[in-house]
């Protein structure tokens, strides 16, 4: 397959560019997930509800995000009555 055919089927001209886009997207996705979970939690959403929308278990989302968010809010976030529900 020459590079012309390749462009026609939609792959990037340079494979490196395609692969680097994957890395960039993965990093951005991680940061975006962290931000949106934090936003939902601060808005008063329960871990169970956040997990449901993300399509993962409550334990998984708690394990991945709770500690970080807790450290970012030394007191309680304004929109929340409690930490763990």
């Amino acid at each position, binding site marked *: 397959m020459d590079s012309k055919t390749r462009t026609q089927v939609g792959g*990037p001209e340079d494979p*490196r*560019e395609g692969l*680097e*886009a994957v*890395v*960039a*997207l*993965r*990093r*951005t996705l*991680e*940061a*975006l997930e*962290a*931000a*949106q979970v*934090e*936003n939902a939690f*601060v808005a008063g959403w329960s871990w169970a509800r956040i997990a449901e929308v993300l399509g993962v278990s409550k334990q998984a989302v708690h394990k991945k995000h709770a*500690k*970080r968010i807790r*450290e970012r809010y030394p007191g309680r976030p304004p929109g929340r009555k409690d930490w763990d529900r």
Partner: protein
Amino acid sequence: MMFTRFTDRSRTSVEAAFDEARMLGHDSLGDEDLLLGILRADEGKAAEALSSLGVTLEDAREASEGMLSDALSSIGISLEGVRTQAGEAFDMRIPDNRRIAYSPVAKKALVGARKEMRRRGDDHLGTEHVLLGILGNADGMAVRMLARMGVAPETLQERLFEVCDRAG
């Protein structure tokens, strides 16, 4: 073992590189992070050569983010758009509880640094050797990051040798 014969400065620059990698959301330490570490530690011959060519830590961080933004643009995603939608909570930083390792490219640069040290007949592995090791990878992120800042690898290498000669 990794740090055998490293000077305090070059060791500090590698430690600073891990901080930079973490801050930028890199899940492994890349060769561009080694370069950022040299700039952040801001000591030693490599930092002197870089700063004499006008390369600053701020410029390098900006170039790194520019490369991330360009890579996302190539698949139709706007980093600014993501940032705006996610709001203030958006932070590329890797959480403290996640460990990051050397990437194969960074390891190769440090192996290259050791070879440069031997080739030059030096006893200690300084920031100048680390920088030469980084420049050894012409396709690397670090070299492309420098190009983005208008610095050609040959120019930097030449300047580095000048700095080393002056130091004796």
